């Protein structure tokens, strides 16, 4: 895991963790790390640099979560979520895992609001969420493939029953542990485990039906 040092407005260096290669943060692993409290306090005091650390840390996972639970409105719901997060920053107390759980609790409520709104206005066609233009990288083709892999994975997760998909996303993509997921979705930890288990199983069924894995049993 690499460290990047950014200088805050107040002149104190803020050490922020850069996501490890290969994955978004795994469950239970704090990513901002030791400087987390400093970062949150800085952001609450209006420090843009500190807010940027938080935003970069959470926005990708937020978008992926919302692509599944608020399909077609992920960007908008994410923006609304940040409005609430910024407003509540000064009142937040807790560790980084708790912070992630808090942010995604807000996101979940915003997504539910959006769903209710969308249900009331069924005539409104759902906007098609287009893939954003990829920033030109060293290897655009590889970047595109990576994008498609992630999009395809989110598509597959979207096909699961919503509660299962949600729990899998919160565990795998957001990196919350069972207890934190339970607090976000308002269920007991045991229920979260069951949902995750069923989601994994159903995912395996679906993948097995589409392309039997070598050594697996054809259905």
């Amino acid at each position: 895991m690499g460290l990047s040092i950014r200088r805050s407005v107040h002149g104190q260096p803020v050490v922020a963790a850069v996501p490890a290669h290969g994955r978004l943060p795994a469950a239970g692993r704090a990513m901002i790390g030791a400087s987390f409290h400093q970062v949150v306090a800085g952001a609450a005091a209006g420090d843009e640099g500190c807010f940027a650390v938080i935003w970069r840390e959470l926005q990708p996972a937020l978008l992926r979560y919302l692509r599944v639970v608020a399909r077609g409105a992920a960007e908008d719901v994410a923006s609304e979520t940040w409005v609430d997060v910024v407003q509540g920053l000064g009142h937040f107390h807790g560790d980084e895992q708790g912070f992630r759980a808090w942010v995604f609790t807000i996101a979940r409520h915003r997504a539910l609001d959006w769903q209710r709104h969308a249900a009331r206005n069924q005539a409104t066609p759902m906007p098609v969420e287009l893939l954003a233009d990829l920033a030109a990288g060293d290897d655009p083709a590889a970047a595109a493939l990576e994008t498609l892999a992630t999009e395809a994975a989110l598509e597959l997760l979207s096909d699961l029953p919503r509660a299962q998909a949600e729990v899998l996303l919160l565990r795998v993509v957001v990196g919350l542990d069972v207890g934190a997921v339970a607090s976000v979705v308002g269920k007991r930890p045991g229920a979260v485990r069951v949902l995750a288990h069923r989601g994994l199983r159903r995912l395996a069924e679906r993948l097995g039906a589409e392309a039997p894995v070598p050594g697996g049993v054809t259905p």
Partner: protein
Amino acid sequence: MSGGDALGDEMDAPDRDPLALDQGTADRLLAGTLDPADAPPAYAGVAEVLAAAAAPPRADELAGEAEALARFAARGPAAPSGGRTRRRRTARVAVATAAVLAVLSISGAVAASDVLPQTGAWLGRAVDSMVGSGRNANTPTAVTPPTASTTAASVPSRREPGRGPIPSATTGRGNGAATPQAGLCTAWRAGKPKNMDAAAFQALAAAAGGADNIPAYCNALQTGNGNGKRDDRPENPGKGQGPGNQPGQERQHGEN
């Protein structure tokens, strides 16, 4: 945790069920610590899908950063929050907010006047027109939030007021200039000069026509601008005119 019992029926009969998944394997899949090659055959694909879902952030997912930061700078964490009673906050927050507003307003003022000594007169006119001939005299429509480029160019620059016009700050920025003065005044009241950013203080002094005139100036501004609002709300610079006030702020967030 009491998940074990509930999972019992699903973890039964591992020999007969090709999709059997023990809790340990499930936990490793969910934690991303199970390599697809080491996963049970039926779950190798699942491990790959989960790894793809949790792949590192992509550029397009971070593309909104400038906009998000601009909104943050404009609103700030201590932005006005409708009728919510504010707890006592440190003056530092108010001063930090005021510093941002000050730089923005200085940008507009300097761009509009090109000469610093005229800034006070210009601001005075702006305030007069707002207080005297209706608050929307200079602002026919709602002020749009600052664009990413404007904010990025003007906010981080703690430039001295006398340096001349800032290219990105068009005269349009001046439309809302009367509003930040209220923020400056509240910041001044909250922190007094000692905590106040030098640029913010200078801007306020210039607007008031001298440091000695600040109390009178701020009182006048508050009277003309207050609309009966409590004056201990440092982050409420006027009413809906400034970049610090955007839709959605009054939304209650009950998640905390």
